[in-house]
């Protein structure tokens, strides 16, 4: 019922929206909850287990009942709290977890079966017959469980992430937060004030108190205006601080456009903020708790503070005839505010015997409790046990208050445990729980407006002292109400029926008692057995009440019983927001070579190689299968000349007198003996003796080397070099830097490679001036480059490097020249076949579990010097001849397909884990040899050359007899590379 003259909604701006297919009108400033309550709609949802009818319980993000689904398809969003959802034109909200309709929910039959569905019933049944769990029980349970539904469509809205830094983060803009921000802001501190709500002011907007003679909401507006005028203060509303992390880092979610139907063009729905704050003041207020009594869960029963909020902030009375039930003076305010607004208050029921007159006209029952309620889809009547007997009172709304719980949650995010305060029957934050954060105001158990204002100012002054700033002079804390908070705990009204604790998960007092009977007496056991506190509000409304019941039934005190841990996020965060930017291609950077565009033009499928993209092959029109392209490209290299971009390999430039010694230490083999103008292959181990990486290193000058790494290990090797230098060999005078991005490098491979190069080099080369493994500077097309005579293909080959800005044109030039010579560009598939034919290893072979011994390179570990990994590589288990060691494999007889990942067995043995002797790592069809070849690791492998074994790939349905051979299939003497 809308109350004339009340509330902060803008009655000049009506908004049309739908709930459950029915059109309604609300006003700007309304939430879905306030707009529906104003229209007399009380039923908004169904509970999780019993599908009980549910109405709104609260007026904030802690709402457990009124959850709705909005949007459709790619923007469908389930489990939206009606209490936080700002209505907007076109809003179409649907109830959830109800079928066929919210009013008539078939699953409500569960409510009749409640005696069989108590705490943990599912642990005791559904076990027979075996196999029915997956086939019958679980599907039924899964369909019945859950709340809202995802649409299944990919998310469509944009989200983003941002960082913010500040001297002081103020969380919450009620009286305490505002006063803290004002005090610090006036002193010139860099302040960030964040407010979860769409409107700054906190409870000042929901109460009728005055501050400094102004209405609370007006004083708040004035304070906000002043803060907005300060260049050193930033204000963010619709922003919830959801987590506290180490070293002053906070996570916050800003609903940038989430309150609109869709973000405007180019806008984001939400922003995920990482806030780094030197200090933080938590002024997050408090959350009111319900009282457990029989059937306390009906639509129309809500917290007393929520009733005041709907009345005072939104001008909507949740009922026409309201009763108020509480255990504290605070509840009396609800009765007073309702009466002042002209709403009929049927009764004020206070569980305490001895209370001062609350100043209301309605009937006051002291020492009385509500013992039950009726009304299937909405509250009709309450039963009251008063001193003079039992009463039935007809009401459509019950405002209840079990007292207030300070919003301690964020202070628990770093394992802080809140402290029990007997005088207010609540937990308060334990100081120091979050380094650099102090909780003030209602959040710290200070419940009067005056106390909140003062605490905010005092806390801000402490921060200013630490920042070295002077507190503002003359600024006084404004005057406000300072009534004491009086409460006598009342957790559960005794009774036989079900009294709800966790409204969403349907956990009742009975469930907690039964859990205790079954020896789930630890608060964590009780939680896990009953699901108490595991709903979407994470127990914000119910945990304290539930543990009080547990404490009672187990005969312990509340502090001794303890509390479960509140963990981030404070309020739920969309995965799209927390993971903003990653959808589609944003998950990882894309690294493109200089030949990328040309490769795409040539139709090459680009495949991921780490963060890089590389061409798989370069198809020609006549080709219908990748193998045709691959075989042709292999032919280029074996018979003419091929060109391949190898820029993705890591390149590290090392300079200084200590460079050679550093290389000697990181490589198994020596590099100080390498002559200037020469290249050497090197093998690098991890300190545990296994191979880390391999590659070539060129000596360009006495103190100047260029190392290449594999594409995959470039970052790891760079870090390793820094480690070895700074941590192990700080005495070495050497500097190095990654130059991977600075140089474009192309392999030019094949018998005609020198002919190609000589057509573009300013100074022609021959076998004497540029023999195998020579390197040096060159000039081509007026560009200074580098030329390395190295070969991964086994052919007469070079790698030519130029500054990256010339890469694209050089690639085009080289490919055009190669094509003129009967060759052309080749891609990863051909490169892999070529290296496999030569038995060259990649990370398929050096996969982290293989040693130099395993790959047949034991002789590369120099006996003359120490190197990383040398000691541990000599462990007995790593030099056992029985280890799986590298071999070549080729099919016997008619060619059979070989595959990578197959297992190796002796012929005619049963295939068991014990008889598995090894596995293949790489396999391909060799167009050069005309049959399949593979590399693999085999126990005693090199000792078994010539023997025939079985190669079995269950996954692909392949099996072949293979001959064990040397890993070098082609040109074992290596003459082609030298020619």
């Amino acid at each position: 019922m809308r109350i004339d003259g009340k509330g902060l909604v803008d009655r000049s701006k009506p908004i049309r929206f739908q709930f459950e297919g029915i059109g309604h009108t609300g006003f700007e400033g309304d939430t879905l909850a306030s707009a529906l309550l104003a229209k007399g709609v009380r039923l908004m949802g169904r509970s999780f287990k019993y599908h009980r009818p549910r109405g709104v319980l609260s007026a904030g993000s802690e709402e457990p009942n009124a959850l709705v689904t909005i949007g459709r398809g790619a923007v469908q969003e389930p489990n939206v709290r009606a209490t936080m959802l700002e209505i907007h034109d076109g809003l179409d909200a649907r109830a959830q977890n109800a079928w066929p309709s919210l009013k008539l929910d078939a699953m409500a039959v569960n409510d009749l079966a409640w005696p069989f569905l108590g705490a943990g019933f599912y642990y005791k049944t559904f076990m027979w017959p075996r196999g029915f769990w997956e086939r019958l029980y679980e599907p039924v349970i899964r369909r019945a469980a859950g709340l809202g539904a995802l649409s299944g469509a990919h998310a469509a809205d944009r989200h983003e992430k941002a960082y913010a830094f500040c001297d002081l983060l103020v969380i919450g803009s009620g009286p305490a937060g505002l006063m803290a921000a004002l005090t610090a802001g006036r002193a010139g501190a860099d302040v960030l004030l964040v407010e979860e709500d769409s409107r700054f002011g906190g409870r000042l907007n929901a109460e009728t108190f005055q501050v400094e003679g102004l209405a609370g909401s007006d004083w708040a507006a004035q304070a906000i205006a002043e803060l907005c005028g300060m260049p050193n203060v930033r204000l963010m509303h619709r922003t919830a601080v959801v987590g506290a992390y180490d070293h002053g880092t906070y996570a916050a979610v800003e609903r940038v456009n989430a309150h609109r139907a869709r973000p405007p063009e180019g806008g984001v729905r939400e922003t995920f903020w990482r806030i780094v704050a030197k200090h933080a003041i938590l002024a997050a207020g408090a959350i009111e708790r319900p009282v457990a009594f029989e059937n306390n869960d009906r639509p129309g029963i809500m917290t007393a503070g929520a009733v005041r909020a709907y009345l005072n902030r939104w001008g909507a009375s949740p009922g026409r005839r309201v009763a108020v039930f509480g255990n504290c003076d605070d509840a009396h305010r609800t009765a007073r505010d309702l009466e002042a607004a002209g709403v009929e208050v049927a009764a004020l029921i206070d569980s305490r015997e001895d209370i001062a007159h609350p100043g209301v006209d309605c009937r006051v029952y002291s020492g009385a409790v509500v013992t039950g309620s009726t009304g299937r889809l909405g509250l009709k009547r309450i039963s009251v046990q008063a001193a003079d007997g039992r009463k039935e009172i007809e009401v459509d709304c019950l405002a209840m208050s079990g007292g207030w719980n300070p919003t301690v949650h964020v202070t628990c995010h770093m394992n802080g445990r809140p402290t029990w305060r007997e005088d207010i029957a609540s937990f308060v934050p334990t100081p120091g729980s979050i380094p650099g954060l102090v909780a003030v105001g209602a959040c710290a158990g200070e419940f009067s407006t005056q106390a909140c204002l003062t605490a905010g100012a005092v806390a801000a002054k402490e921060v200013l002292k630490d920042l070295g700033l002077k507190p503002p002079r003359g600024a006084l804390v404004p005057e406000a109400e300072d009534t004491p908070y009086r409460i006598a705990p009342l957790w559960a009204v005794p009774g036989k029926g079900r009294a709800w604790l966790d409204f969403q998960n349907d956990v009742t007092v009975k469930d907690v008692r039964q859990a205790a009977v079954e020896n789930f007496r630890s608060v964590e056991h009780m939680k896990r057995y009953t699901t108490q506190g595991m709903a979407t509000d994470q127990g914000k409304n119910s945990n304290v009440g539930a543990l009080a019941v547990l404490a009672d039934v187990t005969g312990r005190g509340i502090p001794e019983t303890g509390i479960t841990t509140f963990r981030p996020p404070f309020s739920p965060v969309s995965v799209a927001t927390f993971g903003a930017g990653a959808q589609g291609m944003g998950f990882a950077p894309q690294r493109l070579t200089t030949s990328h565009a040309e490769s795409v033009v040539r139709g090459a499928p680009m495949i991921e190689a780490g963060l890089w993209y590389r061409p798989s092959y370069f198809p020609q029109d006549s080709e219908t299968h990748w193998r045709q392209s691959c075989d042709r490209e292999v032919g280029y290299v074996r018979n003419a000349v091929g060109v391949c971009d190898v820029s993705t390999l890591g390149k590290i430039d090392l300079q200084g007198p200590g460079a050679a010694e550093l290389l000697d230490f990181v490589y198994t083999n020596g590099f100080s003996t390498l002559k200037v103008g020469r290249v050497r292959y090197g093998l690098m181990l991890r300190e545990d003796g296994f191979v880390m990486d391999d590659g070539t290193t060129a000596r360009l000058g006495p103190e100047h080397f260029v190392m290449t790494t594999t594409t995959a290990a470039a970052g790891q090797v760079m870090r390793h070099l820094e480690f070895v230098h700074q941590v192990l060999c700080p005495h070495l005078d050497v500097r190095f830097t990654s130059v991977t991005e600075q140089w474009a490098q192309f392999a030019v491979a094949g018998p005609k490679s020198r002919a190609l190069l000589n057509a573009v080099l300013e100074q022609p080369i021959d076998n004497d001036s540029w023999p195998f493994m020579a390197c040096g500077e060159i000039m081509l097309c007026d560009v200074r480059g580098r030329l390395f005579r190295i070969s991964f293909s086994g052919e007469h080959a070079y790698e030519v490097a130029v500054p990256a800005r010339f890469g694209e044109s050089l690639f085009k030039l080289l490919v055009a020249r190669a094509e003129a010579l009967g060759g052309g560009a080749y891609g990863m598939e051909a490169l892999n076949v070529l290296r496999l034919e030569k038995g060259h290893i990649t990370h398929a072979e050096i996969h982290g579990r293989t040693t130099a011994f395993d790959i047949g390179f034991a002789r590369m570990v120099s006996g003359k010097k120490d190197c990383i990994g040398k000691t541990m590589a000599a462990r007995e288990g790593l030099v056992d001849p029985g280890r799986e060691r590298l071999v070549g494999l080729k099919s016997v007889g008619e060619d059979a397909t070989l595959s990578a990942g197959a297992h190796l067995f002796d012929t005619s043995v049963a295939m068991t884990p014990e008889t598995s002797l090894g596995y293949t790592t790489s396999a391909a069809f060799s167009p050069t040899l005309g049959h399949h070849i593979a590399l693999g690791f085999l126990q005693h492998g090199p000792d078994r050359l010539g023997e025939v074994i079985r190669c079995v790939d269950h996954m692909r349905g392949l099996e072949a007899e293979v001959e064990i051979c040397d890993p070098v299939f082609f040109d074992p003497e290596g003459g082609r590379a030298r020619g």
Partner: protein
Amino acid sequence: MTFSGLRVLKEGLTGNRGWAPHWRDPEPKAAYDAVIIGGGGHGLATAYYLAKNHGLTNIAVLEKGYIGGGNIGRNTTIVRANYFLPGNSEFYSHSLKLWEGLEEDLNYNVMHSQRGIINLFHSDGQRDAFVRRGNAMITQGDDAILLDREGVRQHLPYLDFENTRFPIYGGLYHPRGGTARHDAVAWGYARGADRRGVDLLQNCEVTGIDIENGAVCGVQTTRGAIRAKKVGIVVAGRSSQVAAMAGMRLPIESHVLQAFVTEGLKPCIDHVVTFGMGHFYISQSDKGGLVFGGDLDFYASYASRGNLPTAEHVMEAGMTLMPMIGQAKLLRSWGGIMDMTPDGSPIIDRTETDGLFIDCGWCYGGFKAVPASGYAFAHLMATGQHHETAAAFRFDRFRTGRGLLDEEGTGSQHNLH
């Protein structure tokens, strides 16, 4: 009391007044034949199998807090047998077989759900590594199926197959893999052990291990001294501290692993799905929450909580893989303490102290191992011999390099597995 649907029915009709404690809370005795330090999943399972398989019933489980309060109560509940290195594969294969009969064995519904696990791969190299793994699984007698891209699409149509940074090439499908209700596993083993006479001593923190002449003779606890000739240490997350009480240093560094759950949702993810390029894995609980996680935070920690970089990375992986979960809301995040070993595989072994045994180093893979770990550790404690399925989990493999079990191939840096 035997649990059954009939029992639930009967109790429901008679006011649920007949339920009894699932386990007793006995006072500690002065001496036991054996004590197990640690009332987590592995410790409770060890007690259960000591009693069931070896007839040792005069034993106690000593738990610092409440039973099942460690990693068994905070993991992402995945059960699988998809290891490929000999030494690991037979162990996890055994464990899965134990899982498959666990409800009947324990008379407790642990909700073991064999909904299938699909490990996605995103390159030819990853595919070949998964093929090797799948072939090892088949050879071990377990199940594995190689799916191509279309095969994955049939099972998981909601993945982003069109616009994603690391396209899906295919997946390794392990139909017998799945999930279980983690807490119920602890409770089921606890109740099973208790019913066989094992004393479960909660709030009983071990403060010292008594050793005389190179042999263990008991422990000191916050509830008094307890004598025992055999002591088993099974305290994931505190292994190094408890081992230090016996003068041992372990090849372990403890790290934090975060896990996440969303609000409840109607069924939308029917399998366990893992992402090969982002260390992301996800399933949906029977309650409807999406349960997911990723990699370690990568710094040593006992804080049971993580930080934003890893949390964000996990969400980002989810968004690139399956952007339909964008509107699911993260409800809760938490952390567990992972005892990381230098090869990523566990230790079930004797120690240099006679009668003192240890079961530790489960890294972040301990949940699925609970049955077989308890089975094998009970065997070791009872007989002094390694069980055949867990014979590879020795201390000395690191020193000798013999029998290292480095499934990830990342070497001796603890946090890289």
